[in-house]
């Protein structure tokens, strides 16, 4: 099983969700985060004073899928989340040691 963690632009969440649903992915976890990469931050101005805001709002998705689908999921997320402009985000793929469905106790691929 693979954990696919993607940090994307917040307004791209809906497009990514739709793309994953089309692929048959049955669940995901989403959190609101802040971050920066090479995009760096931005400058905001209040009453003539400049504030350097280092962190930009992003959304983090976490999806766990069986090994067979991981590559297609990564591609789908990348296609849907892309704008071509700086700050599009990143996708990380990690190995998952175990998965358990809390309600039934199913484990492994059956829990996904």
């Amino acid at each position, binding site marked *: 099983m693979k954990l696919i963690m993607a940090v994307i632009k917040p307004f791209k969440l809906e497009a990514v969700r739709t793309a994953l649903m089309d692929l048959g992915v049955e669940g995901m976890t989403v959190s609101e985060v802040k971050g920066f990469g090479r995009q760096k931050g931005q400058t*905001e*101005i*209040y*009453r*003539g*004073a*400049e*504030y350097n*805001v280092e962190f930009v709002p992003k959304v983090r998705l976490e999806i766990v899928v069986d090994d067979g689908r991981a590559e297609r999921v990564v591609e789908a997320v990348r296609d849907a989340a892309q704008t071509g402009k700086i700050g599009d985000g990143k996708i990380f793929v990690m190995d998952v040691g175990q998965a358990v469905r809390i309600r039934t106790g199913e484990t492994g691929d059956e829990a996904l």
Partner: protein
Amino acid sequence: MSGIINRCGGAALALAMIFIAFPASAQEVSGANTAWILTSTALVLFMTLPGLALFYGGLVQAKNVLSVLMHCFAIACLASVLWLVCVYSLAFDEGSGLVGGLGKMMLSGVSFDTVSGDIPESVFFMFQMTFAIITPALIVGAYVERIKFSAVLLISALWLIVVYAPVCHWVWGGGFLADMGVMDFAGGLVVHATAGTSALVIVKVLGARPGYPSQLHPPHSPGMTMIGASMLWVGWFGFNAGSALAADGSAGMAMAVTHISAATASLVWVFIEWKKFGKPSLVGVVTGMVAGLATITPASGFVGPIGGLCIGLLGGFVCYGAVVLVKEKFKFDDSLDVFAVHGVGGILGTLAAAVFVTTELGGAGLADGMTVMSQLKVQALGVAATVVWSAVATLVIVYIAKAVCGLRCDDDEMDEGLDLSYHGERDYNF
């Protein structure tokens, strides 16, 4: 049918007896004026609770928002009790040219029927109380995010007695500035100049926020600030138009010029920010509004609509310049620009009143025997007396507070946030 007529007849007789039995003083009260000043009292209290609280609250970091709300609320309560105990008397009782007497401590001698002019004295007492509440609350903006709560209470209490009461007496309580003919309709000197000057003094001793000026934190909720600002605008009608102490044309005109000044100064800030940064901000437009309101305050009962417009323009531009001067040139952390907006605005409006009061400029007309120059001199003297006394007295008060309870929070307390450190609460429990 006959039963109804009997009852009406009985009521008419009772009414007639009331008019015969009660002494003439009860009839000197103007119902219309009383109703308006009762309303104005509510409006001005609304300016502090929650107008000013929200205005300032939105401008600080989320971890300190409750401390700001607390400062405003606690000062409102403290000022109310002190007003009753002695400050009203020191401001408005007959005394010397410098301060009132103690004859009205605990409102002694004032009963249900006592009048002040043609409104009940209880109403006058309450209306003026709301001014005494908001003035120390204005100063909160200067020392946010780094002051101890105990210091806030001690400084505010001493300040009301030693700074607010005398200056109020000088201008409105029959003191020496009133004798000189100083024009301050609703508090350019008594409220804004005192608060603004004292803010600077406190900041000098307290020190800046950690990370100032290079590492600033943006307002956590400009939306909250706008909501508070809107309440200030509406409430200011009570502040200025209520200061007419009558429901009449002078109140109406005061409301009109107040409103026009607010709107004009707001647009001035939009214009400046648009030109300077390409983006007019919400925080900017509401700050412009406050500048316009503070500047018109001393002049509101004396000028006409054109005066309101001009004063709005002046207040908008001059206060913007003052913000830049204090923050960028002098690098002074008057955090929410109390001096630049209220202090400078109040002083500017006090001086401008001498010019725009003239009938040529649509005003109510200079006092008998005065010229623009002579009135301007009187206004300037009023400004000087107010600023000097505010500065000196506040300096002493701040050092007393420093010795008694300390002024500044620890670094740890500021890191954690004043809400948790001083009030054991978090505003946003996500």
